[in-house]
Every structure is written in C-alpha cells, then in structure tokens.
C-alpha cells in the first residue's frame, strides 16, 4: 500500500505554551472508540488536577453509515486550570478520523478561525476516486473557512503496532493528546490499565504501546505544544457523568427500589444501578412498560419504601396518570426525567429543557407536586437525596428534571461526605395512634402523617377518588374543595422554608438573565464575558420550579430587563405574525410572568445542543441593543 508522505519533523522548534484552558474534540464514525479516547484523556487531565467537562457527540443510530456528515460520533473535552461548568464554545483542536464527520460539527458552529484539525489522511490515497475527490474538496473547503488542517497518517502509524488499526487508533490518539498537552505519559499508561484491565494483560500491553506510539508520533508530527496547569486542592475529587451521579444519589438516599423502562437518555442510570444497587440491598426493576414502572414504584412507596422511577419525555407522558394519583393520594415518589429533544419522539440523544410545563401541569385537574432541577452534575447527586426527603416530608411526588447534557457530560467535583440521615430509615411499624385520621391535614400547611401498611390500627384505603380526612370516598362539594386546598397548601409550606436565590454578577443592573437546569455554567460564563465588557448584566439560576424560591419579584425589580435563557422553544420576537400578545414564550418565562407580573422576556433554542457562553453573550448583546419594551402593560 502506498504510504502517505510523512509530515516534516518539527519537534525541535516547538515551544510549550501555557494556557488557562483548551477545548479538544475527537470525531469519527460510530464504533471507532472516539468517546472512550476522550473519556480516557479527560480522566488523565482530571487526575492531574484540571477542571474537566466532557460531552459526547452521539448519532441517533447505533451504526450509521461510515463517512457520513450525519453519522458523526465523538466527544468534546474542555479542560482548564479552574473548575469547568460547561462544554464551552469553539474547539481549539480536533482529531478527525475522516473529513466527512467534520461537516456536521462545522455546521453546528463547533469550530473557530484557526481551530487546529488533525485529520486522518489515508482517504487521499483511497482506491475509490469518489472518496479521494471528496477528501480533497473537503480539505480545501475547510482551509478556505479558516481551519488549520494538518493531514496525518494516523492509521498507518497505528498499523506499525496492530493489524486492527481501526479500533486501536483511539488509544493512539490518547497518546498524541497527552504529548501535545504535556500530560504525564505514565498517568496515561495507568489509565489505559484502569480502563482496559478487565480485558487482560495482552490487550492492556497492546493499547499501552499504541499510547506510546501516539505520543512519539505527535512529538514528531505536530508542530504545536501547550500546557494547561492545574491547581489541586486538598479535598478528594470524584469524576462521573450526571446519570452516574443520579445512580449514586439513589444509593445515598437509601431508596431501595428503582423501577424503569429503557429510554434514551435515561437508560444508563439503570446500567449503573444494575451493577451497583444489589450491594446496598437495592433492586432495579425493569418493568414491562413506563406505566408499570411508575405503578410498581408507587406500590413500594405506599408500602413504606419510597421508590424512584426514571424516564425521559415520552415516558413522562405515559406516567402522567400515576403522577396525578400520587399527588391525589399523597404518596411519596421520586420521578427523574432526563429530558431530551421533543416534541414526541423528537431528538432522543440530544438535549432540551422542554418538559418543565409537562412536569408541572401534565395531569388533569389540580395536581400540586414538587419539581426541582439540578444545575450541575454534582447537584444531580444531591438532588436525588433531597427529592426523597421532600417526598416523604411533604407526602408528595417529586419530579427531578435533568437533561441529556447533564446525563452524558462528565465532570469533576469534590467527593461528597456521606451523612447517615441522607439514608431512609427503617419502615415505621409502630402501632398507629388511636383516632388519628390517615389524612389528618394541618389546616395551615396541609401536612399530615401517613399510615404505612403493617402499622396496627392505621388500616385505610388510598384512592384517586375525592376523599375525606378518613380516606373515605366522598363526592360532596366540601370534601373535594378541602382536599384540593390541603394539597395545594403543602407547596406554600415548602416554599416558606426556601431562601431567596443569589444573583451572579451583581444585585442590580440593566439585564437579569434567568435560567434553570444544565445551562448554569454557560449562563454564568456569559455573564462574566459581558461584565468584562462593562455591561450591567447579572444572572439568576432557579433550582426549585415548584414551588419557586421566594423573593423573585424583588430581585427582578432591581433590573431594567429580565430575560430567561432556556433550551426549549419560543417564538423569536421578530418572527412573522408574532406580537406581544400572541408570542409563545419559553417555559420558565411563562411561569415567571405569571408569578411575578414582570414582563419577562426570553431567548431560547431547540437545536439539540447545549448552549455555549459565547452564543448566550451574543443573544444578550442583541437584546440590549433592541429598544427596551415597557416593563409592564402591553409590551
């Protein structure tokens, strides 16, 4: 086979440039191990003390056609001296196993002028004329667009080590990246053993050779070298993705039963629990469908073992009737919705924050419930623990909204210090107090204590029908009115225990950006960018969506404008036929307008990608440049 011409040796001229952060991508066809390579490299960076955030680039199909722009599979790794809270804006360096997969990334705005592309060059010599031509065209086009393309014989170099270069080159890339960014080679070799150890010494040795070869290859062939120094604190650090954090949170909450049905992107929680749950005495039930999953969980909850069901948008829709029942019957239950693109089947592998209103209002009638949204991977862990305690204390279902960005993003955070009270205690089996009603509502807070099967003297029937304090079916006017009031008051009671959130950046100014969920890091970074430009912008992030944290109207009142930034659909104010009355606004914006009577604006998108700080900053600049609408009234 014709060997591609080698690149000039440049190592002698290289000077290692220190930087605060870098963003690296590896993109490939599906099945070439790009994600494993990125995770391995990210872990090496984390172990060296960098802040790290990785996000997977996932095609919807398991095996999309090779060399297709839509089939791009890969990973982005953002690593920095300081903690990293989001996936950032533009990649600085890209390793690509073919040129076609770059088209989609370029269209998504993933790269900037000068982004360095290390491109597999074997397609230049491909036996098929069509492949050779499309490769040449692509390289020309990428260069014309301002990318710095370095064509490299990656696979040929791997073939010196292994006949299976297609699957082996991912570890070769780990070696290259470690060399380019001055990572410790031994750390990389250790990581290969940690990742592949189960597959035996032979596999480990082969992959370590590939790492070494990639290291040497980069030193010879890549004329750039950087370093990203690290600051390491005393506290031990953990590294995981959001779904693993949910799984660990379930263990630490003491919940013993999770019932779920496979659905992207929630499923990987079940993979984690399938392995880890039995050791803490827990059981993962894979139900026959989404409805059975929540029914099974609710049965366990009713019997005194507060349980959890995990799903994504389409599954949440199917669970609606049981969610309403749990609210009506005042049963504790934790429902985790890992949101993906909608509507309907939508974008199964991609991010959206489109289920907020469905979580709040999906059921017929008034069904108050608690809805909370972790903003970071670390919070995914803690919010599950919080959810169980709220569910039991307030005798209510609690919906936890995460999303595909948190689910597949991998980040570092301080190792949690476990607390015994996080873990559910034993089921109360003491005799039920004589004469105490099963719904002995406190008239102010609506709170009551729940009899648990096995408690002698507490026998009662839960029903989704209107019922009295005694749990007896009642169709009279007073009983239903009272029941609805009591269930509603619980939310006000919970809201009264919360503290007002703190704005990021400033307590007053021109514009307040309000967000929720996984957009926290990108929004705050955008605010920092804007404040560095002397713009009076701040942000506020909400963790409680039902009930809201208090004091929002006061906080909003200190800003000339308030605008939500959300990953769900809204009409652009400039869209045809849109006016202030008929414009369909983003979901949190709708809620905030109703709760605060402030004319809350919104900027949102449903492109299936997490926001980068730069695009948020640009959106804020554009809105600031537009004439301010009147704060109240017909704006």
């Amino acid at each position, binding site marked *: 086979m014709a060997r591609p011409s080698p690149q000039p040796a440049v190592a002698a001229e290289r000077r290692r440039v220190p930087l605060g952060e870098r963003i690296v991508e590896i993109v490939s066809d599906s099945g070439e191990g790009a994600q494993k390579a990125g995770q391995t490299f990210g*872990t090496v960076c*984390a172990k060296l003390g960098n802040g790290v955030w990785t996000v997977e680039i996932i095609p919807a199909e398991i095996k999309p056609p090779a060399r297709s722009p839509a089939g791009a599979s890969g990973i982005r790794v953002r690593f920095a001296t300081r903690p990293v809270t989001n996936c950032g804006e533009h990649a600085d360096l890209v390793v690509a196993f073919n040129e076609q997969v770059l088209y989609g990334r370029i269209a998504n705005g993933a790269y900037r002028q000068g982004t360095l592309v290390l491109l597999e060059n074997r397609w230049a010599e491909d036996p098929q004329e069509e492949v050779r031509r499309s490769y040449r065209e692509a390289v020309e086009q990428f260069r014309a667009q301002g990318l710095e393309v370095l064509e490299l014989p990656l696979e040929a170099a791997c073939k010196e080590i292994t006949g299976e270069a297609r699957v082996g080159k991912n570890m070769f890339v780990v070696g290259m990246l470690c060399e380019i960014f001055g990572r410790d080679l031994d750390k990389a070799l250790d990581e290969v053993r940690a990742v592949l150890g189960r597959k035996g010494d032979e596999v480990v040795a082969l992959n370590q050779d590939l790492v070494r070869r990639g290291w040497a290859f980069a030193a010879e062939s890549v004329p750039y070298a950087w370093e990203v120094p690290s600051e390491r604190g005393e506290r*031990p*650090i*953990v*590294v*995981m993705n959001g779904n693993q954090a949910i799984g*660990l949170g379930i*263990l*630490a909450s*003491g919940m*013993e*039963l999770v*019932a779920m049905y496979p659905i992207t992107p929630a499923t990987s929680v079940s993979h984690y629990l399938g392995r880890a749950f*039995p*050791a*803490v*005495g*827990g*059981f993962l*039930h894979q139900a*026959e469908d989404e*409805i*059975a*999953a929540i*029914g*099974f*969980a*609710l*049965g*366990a909850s*009713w*019997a*005194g*073992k507060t*349980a959890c069901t995990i799903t994504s948008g389409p599954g949440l829709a199917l669970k609606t009737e*049981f969610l309403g*029942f749990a609210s009506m019957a005042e049963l504790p239950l934790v429902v985790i919705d890992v949101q993906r693109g909608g509507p309907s089947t939508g974008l199964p592998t991609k991010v959206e924050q489109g289920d907020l209103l469905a979580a709040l209002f999906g059921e017929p009638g008034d069904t108050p419930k608690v809805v909370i949204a972790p903003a970071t991977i670390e919070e995914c862990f803690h919010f599950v623990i919080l959810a169980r305690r709220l569910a039991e204390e307030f005798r209510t279902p609690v919906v936890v909204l995460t999303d595909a960005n948190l689910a597949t993003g991998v980040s*570092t955070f301080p*190792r949690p210090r*476990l607390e*015994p009270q996080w*873990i559910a*205690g*034993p089921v109360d089996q003491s005799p039920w107090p004589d004469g105490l009603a099963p719904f002995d509502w406190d008239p102010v807070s609506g709170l009551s204590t729940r*009899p648990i*099967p*096995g*408690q*002698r*003297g*507490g*026998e*009662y*029937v*839960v*029903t*989704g*029908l209107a019922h009295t304090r005694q749990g007896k*079916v009642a169709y009279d006017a007073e009983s239903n009115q009272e029941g609805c009031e009591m269930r509603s008051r619980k939310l006000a009671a919970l809201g009264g225990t919360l503290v007002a959130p703190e704005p990021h950046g400033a307590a007053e100014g021109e514009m307040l950006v309000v967000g929720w969920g996984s957009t926290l890091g990108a929004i705050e970074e955008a605010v920092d960018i804007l404040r560095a430009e002397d713009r009076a912008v701040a942000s506020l992030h909400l963790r409680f969506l039902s009930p809201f944290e208090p004091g929002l109207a006061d906080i909003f009142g200190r800003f000339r404008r308030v605008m939500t930034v959300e990953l769900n659909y809204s009409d652009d104010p400039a869209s045809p036929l849109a006016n202030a009355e008929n414009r369909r606004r983003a979901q949190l914006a709708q809620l905030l307008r109703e709760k605060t009577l402030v004319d809350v604006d919104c900027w949102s998108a449903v492109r299936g990608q997490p926001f980068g700080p730069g695009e948020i900053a640009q959106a804020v600049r554009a809105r600031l440049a537009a004439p301010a609408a009147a704060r109240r009234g017909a704006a």
Partner: protein
Amino acid sequence: MLGPAHDPALEIPERYFTLENYDGGVARWCPSCGDFAILSAVQKICRDRQVPPEKLAMISGIGCSSRFPHYMHAYGFHGLHGRPLPVACGVKSRRPDLEVWVATGDGDCCSIGAGHWLHAARYNMDLVVMIFDNSVYGLTKKQTSPTTPLGMPTNTHPQGAILPPLNIAETTLGFPNVSFVARSVDWNPAHLYQTLATAAAHRGTSFVHILQRCPTYTPNVFDEWRQNPELTLLLTHERGVPADDVVRRVYKRQAEHDPADLAAARRLASMHEQLAIGLFYRNPEAPRYDLATSVGVGLTREQKLATIERELDRFTI
C-alpha cells in the same frame, strides 16, 4: 438462669381475629351483586388464616370489582384503571411480609390492563389475583367487555357484541411462567371459598377466574350453567381444590384432573358447553420474582454507608 429462654413474642397478648375484624363497612354494590359472595369468602379466609388486618394489602384498579378494598378492614390501594398488578407487584417487591390480594375485573385486567396481566403471570410474585368476570363494563353502564358473549346487546354494540369473548382461564394458561389458574362461580359459596383458600395457600401468583353475575346488566348471562348443574364439570384431585360433599352433591359431573398437567388444563379451561370449575393448573416450582426483588431488605444504614463509600472510591481520582 434456669427455665425457658426469654421469648419476647410471649409477651404480646394473643390476638384472635373474627369476621368483624375484616369488615370495612357496608358495601355499596347493587343488591344481589355477585361481589358480595366474593367479599364474604375473602373475609372468611382471612379469619381462618388469622392474618392480622394490618398485614393485609388489598389492591385494585377501577370498576365495580375494584371497590373491593373499601369494604375490607385492611390496608387498601384503590388505584388506576388497569394498573392494580404493577402496584401489587411493587408492594410485594420490598414488603414480603404483607399478604397481597388483587381485585380486578374483566375490563380492568383483560382490556386496559392486559399487558400487565401477562407480565404479572411471568413475574409470579406471591399474590392472589381475583378476576371478577361479569362479562360487561358495569360501573360505566353496560359497554362491551372482552368477555361479553357474542351477540349480546350492549350500549356500545346495540346490535350485539361483534367478536367472540376471550376465555380468561384459557388465556391465562397460555402465559409464560404461570403457576396457578383456577375458576369458580359466585353462586356456589362453598366452592368459591375453597378455590380462593387454595389460591391463598399457593406461593406464587394465583389467578382465580370468578364468574360473577351483575344483577343490573348481565343478570342472566350465566343462566345456562346456573340452572343446569349438569353443564358444570367439577375438577377434583388430591392436589386440586378440595370439594366437600355439599359441592359434590350439586355438581355430579366430576373429572379427576391432575393440576400438574398443563395440556389437559388448557383443554378443560377452553370448554364452553361444559363449564369446568376448580384448579386447572398449579406449578409450585415456577420461578418467583419476589424472591429476587426482596434480597437485601433490612440492611442497616451503617451497612449501606460502608458500601456507598466503597462505591464512591470507584469514582475518586
């Protein structure tokens, strides 16, 4: 110290339960509804088994039959239409100490909840599932159900039901891992009692198909068999539903049927002119999901904490 070892159980004053201990108040079914017979059989079985009321979990869906938990003095879960089986399985999964009964109907179980019917059989958790079959939707006022006889006029099919009915016992016998299927009738309380008592003693999911008259919408649907006991075939076997002399005197046509014989069970269940009652099939060896779901019940906080710390170690760098 001399004498017997200290036994705290001896300090608990002995409780003896009478029928009144299981009485949940006046049942509000239509007068002469077949459900009364079922309620009274279940209360007797609970008394005879001396199950503490607080250990009884009565789970139901929606429909006339599903009002059942309200009329028992026990813990009850009157849930959603079609969904009692997942709830009951969830209850049993982590509370193996509770005795779980399910009251469901031909619409609740075999129509809106049919998917769970099959899977509950497959899970084979330790439950009694009573399928009240009155051949009609009663609570919503006479719509066609999956067991409505062909040609019977209903409010949704005034010209008569278009499709032949499904046979609940026969269908259940087709499900994977099914471990217990019996049939009885509301008009023979002795046989009904013995059938449900046999179901309660079985460890696994016991499906009992109960032909039950609706006095309002299907009062005559079972007349053929009620008026002519010759058309009923009483299944007898030493491992089947015990039939006392009273039952044997009524149902003179009898067949010795070994409940281990699944092929014969399916043949007997599928007969129409002859209504077979008794135990069709029982397999005490069928795998039980509840034995897996309840592993680890009762681990202490301390045991869990130590394991979670080890789990965090795996993520610590």
